[in-house]
């Protein structure tokens, strides 16, 4: 009999507790967890672009995150479902987005996937999870820098399969 595999997703203003989240998706059969966390960068040195507009290396004072919470939760569930459809070895999945005013070095997002062994796709599943979250989960951030404030806009345009 297949055990029930835990799926956790949340939008929260609270600190992300990695220990606790990993514990919640660890079953008796679990031997491996791949976890991704993203943090607020205080210094960005790589040139980049968002929505076709180039941005130079710059400093960030803080970010303010907002979410369309009920849709974000549904889309997080969808990301988890997509992961399970691609890697049937995955046992537990946790997806958390922190919102509110967040300062450099603070973890803002977490994706964790567990499996019995490390060679079963856990790393790929976690990578897929964060990539998809950044495409389809409705969360936005406003960046506050020494020279002003600006909404950061993504680039991905969803299609009917998203």
């Amino acid at each position, binding site marked *: 009999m297949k055990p029930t595999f835990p799926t956790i997703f949340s939008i929260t203003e609270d600190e992300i507790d990695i220990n606790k989240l990993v514990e919640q998706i660890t079953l008796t059969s679990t031997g491996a967890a791949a976890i991704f966390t*993203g943090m607020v960068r205080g210094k960005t040195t790589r040139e980049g672009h*968002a*929505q076709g507009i180039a941005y130079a290396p710059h400093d960030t004072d803080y970010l303010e*995150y*907002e*979410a*369309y919470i*009920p*849709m*974000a939760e*549904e889309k997080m569930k969808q990301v988890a479902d997509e992961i399970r459809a691609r890697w049937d070895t995955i046992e537990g999945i946790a997806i958390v*987005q922190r919102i509110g005013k967040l300062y450099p070095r603070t973890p*803002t*997002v977490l994706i964790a996937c567990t499996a019995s062994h490390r060679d079963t796709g856990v790393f790929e599943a976690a990578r897929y999870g*964060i990539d998809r*979250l*950044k*495409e*389809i*989960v*409705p*969360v*936005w*951030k*406003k960046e506050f820098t020494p020279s002003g404030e600006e*909404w*950061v*806009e*993504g*680039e*991905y*345009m*969803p*299609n*009917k399969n*998203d």
Partner: protein
Amino acid sequence: MHTIKILFFATFRTRAGMSSMELEIKNGSTVGELKEILVAKIPALEASLHHTLLSINRDFAFDEDVIPEGAEVALFPPVSGG
């Protein structure tokens, strides 16, 4: 006619100057038609409308989709979470 709820997020909230509104639309109206109505009401939205994401009842929707009765519609820019 039926009433839908419209939510605005991020830049769209700033441009619309509000976070939500209720709107009466004709039965059978599509997303594309709704966008035209919104731009007529709130010209500030026009500039970014080619880069709008729109959801109906918390799922992405597209210009040809018909808006169901009493729908919760949201307008927002491409997401930038993480």
